[in-house]
């Protein structure tokens, strides 16, 4: 089994690219791969707890918690990007990490594949 690192800048609301990233991660985890999932920029919106499910908007929290429970999924938000948007450490959902950008680059070191979604 391999390691996939996904980095994304895409918004949770207003773009479907983050949905793609999460569904791809889910498919990879289901196949037994390890996935590191990095969020920068608007993607850090995913690292805010207390999101409610509305049919008009993507709701990815449940899928993320299920992936975290496997132990093969790591999800980390850019700390500065989150702070700039008013999401503080205490706003982070359980199991999520906050790190600086070098964490993401370090994750690519042992990754077999890297998918970088650099935009919405």
């Amino acid at each position: 089994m391999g390691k996939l690192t996904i980095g994304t800048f895409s918004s949770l609301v207003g773009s479907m690219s983050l949905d793609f990233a999460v569904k791809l991660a889910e498919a990879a985890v289901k196949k037994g791969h390890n996935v590191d999932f990095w969020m920068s920029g608007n993607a850090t919106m995913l690292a805010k707890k207390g999101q409610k499910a509305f049919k008009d908007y993507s709701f990815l929290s449940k899928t993320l918690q299920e992936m975290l429970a496997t132990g093969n999924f790591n999800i980390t938000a850019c700390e500065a990007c989150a702070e700039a948007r008013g999401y503080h450490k205490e706003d982070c959902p359980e199991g999520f990490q906050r790190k600086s950008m070098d964490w993401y680059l370090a994750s690519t070191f042992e990754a077999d594949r890297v998918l970088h979604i650099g935009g919405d």
Partner: protein
Amino acid sequence: MKLAVLMSDYRTGSDIIDRLSAEKLGIILVGNGVYHAAAKEDGKACAILDKKAEFFALTEDFESRGFTADKLDSRVKAVNYSDVVDLIFNDYEKVIWL
């Protein structure tokens, strides 16, 4: 290099595709990129499909946009998320998102 391009847009990114060269090139149409596989303008298929590459389109995304697999260009193979994971790990070495 063996390169998989995840093409997520319809109106942008073709300029990059035109220039890319790879020993093995796979273009996986996702998001709005699936219109390359299914839409015709003035009755013509999208020019991107003339590129020397293997083409795939994500079923979840073309179905979400009202297309069915039988409407895809014959050069494009329908795949699901599980297939995309296998393509990324088994058939290509590098992956980019456009």
